[in-house]
């Protein structure tokens, strides 16, 4: 994991709640994100990921709680903060009747950047859109719009980048390049706050928060979260298969195998680890059971 540059926090959330009428979209979220890291929000649709990002960029009000980005409030200090953050919303949020160049140039102009054309060209080159920079966006594919939207979010070189499902509709090759660049940005001290529902992307984050129905179920490094899973060890000995369920196979496998003495009768050993998806599903199931029990106790 990449540690924070100077130990300061890029994002700090305390007891954050957001309600839309009777619907509670966020139910008391607490999060800390160190500078220079990639922080992932993983959850299904409706988990509250976009709501949280919209609050962090100052597009949505919080019902209660405290939110700070780079030590500033997205509400009270919005005009100081807005030139230091980049935001890529879930919808492309582009002007379809303008060219790719004009779209990036327009958002760039809000930040008072010297040599804006040079910056726009650079960011279009990065997103592989130089060849199409003069074409109107209306003819772009979904993936191209995502790339252009990312270009608009990056053009002013923000310190913190909020990306709401940035790779939705992007092909695997480009997805890999996006993530390679996110890592480069993080290594330069930029912070990436990214939401996703893709397990393989979640594994690329430095820290991960798994969300469900407005609640953070767990937040830790992907490695530690993976250790919450179980493993199944299949041992074929004397023509028979035996299956053992163990928690941490790295620590427990030597102990388990001692009883077989690893003689010639052992012909095959197979280890099946829980995937992140299985762990997430188990967490969701556990939460549902706990909620049902709580409700039953109330009745």
């Amino acid at each position, binding site marked *: 994991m990449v540690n924070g540059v100077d130990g300061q926090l890029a994002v700090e959330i305390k007891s954050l709640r957001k309600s839309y009428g009777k619907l509670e979209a966020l139910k008391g979220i607490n999060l800390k994100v160190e500078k220079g890291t990639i922080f992932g929000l993983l959850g299904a649709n409706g988990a509250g990921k976009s709501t949280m990002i919209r609050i962090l960029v100052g597009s949505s009000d919080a019902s209660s709680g405290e939110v700070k980005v780079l030590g500033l409030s997205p509400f009270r200090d919005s005009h100081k903060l807005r030139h230091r953050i980049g935001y890529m919303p879930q919808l492309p949020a582009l002007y379809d009747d303008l060219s790719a160049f004009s779209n990036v140039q327009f958002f760039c*102009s809000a930040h008072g950047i010297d040599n804006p054309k040079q910056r726009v060209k650079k960011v279009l080159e990065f997103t592989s859109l130089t060849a199409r920079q003069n074409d109107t966006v209306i003819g772009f594919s979904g993936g191209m719009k995502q790339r252009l939207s990312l270009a608009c979010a990056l053009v002013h070189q923000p310190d913190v980048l909020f990306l709401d499902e940035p790779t939705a509709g992007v092909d695997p090759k480009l997805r890999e390049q996006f993530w390679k660049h996110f890592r480069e940005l993080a290594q330069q001290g930029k912070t990436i706050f990214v939401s996703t529902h893709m397990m393989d992307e979640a594994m690329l984050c430095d820290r991960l928060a798994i969300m469900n129905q407005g609640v953070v179920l767990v937040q830790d490094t992907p490695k530690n979260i993976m250790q919450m899973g179980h493993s199944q060890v299949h041992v074929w000995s004397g023509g028979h298969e035996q299956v053992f369920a163990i928690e941490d196979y790295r620590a427990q496998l030597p102990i388990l195998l001692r009883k077989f003495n690893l003689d010639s009768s052992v012909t095959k050993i197979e280890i099946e680890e829980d995937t992140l998806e299985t762990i997430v599903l188990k967490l969701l199931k556990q939460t549902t059971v706990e909620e049902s029990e709580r409700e039953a106790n109330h009745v």
Partner: protein
Amino acid sequence: MSSVTKGGNVGEMRRASGRFSGKRLVTISRRVLLQLRHDRLFLALSLLAPVIMVLFLKVFFDSMKGPGFVVSHFIVPMGAFLIHFFTYILCAIALVRERAHETLSRMFVNGFRRGEIILGFLLAYSLLATLQSLIVLALLGWLFELSYVFEIYASIYLVIWLLAVISVALGIFLSNFAHSEAQMIPTIPLVILPSVFLSGIIVAVDKLPDWVQPISRISPLYYANNALQKLILPNGSLGDDWASLLGLLAYGLIVLMLGSVTLKERD
């Protein structure tokens, strides 16, 4: 993909201040006008629609000709109404579309301010309205053989242009309450129909029931019609009804202020 971060750092840039910026205002106007230029069908229809309506007015009023019927008393305010109608709709729909497509919230996140957005839209759509007003007035003068001196023509144009700018501001203000184009549609008859029937274009306001007369004053067309009716009288001039002109100006300022206050940065 090459690296975007190499060769660029924060030191290269001048961070924009959080204060109101005329430069950002002009950027917004330029962007809106660029969009209009690219959407040629929209631009053509915006200019053609008032022309077609004036042609219909010509057919309609020609069939009403008779002794004592002074067509200019009706046709000049009707021209003003057409401009009010089209500028209101075009601007209101455009701003709602920005909200629905989330480009408006993206503008805020990037640091554009409320005043810059409101005035940027107002400037861009006022330029379109300027063109619309010019076309409509020229066509009215030609088709209905209006024989005013240049000074009166210029004064009529000023009143109609002012109404157009105010209609843009009204469109901005009312669009703040809609989240989609569909939600904006019901406001069109609510704003437009009372302005036709109650602003004095068809029936003089003092002939309407007492309880309706205050409602007439809600439409900017009421003030524009009053000023125009005085202007087109023989020996009429812009100075004959300062109160209506000031009413029109005050109306515009109030609507602009309300538009700025009700434009939400956050949901």
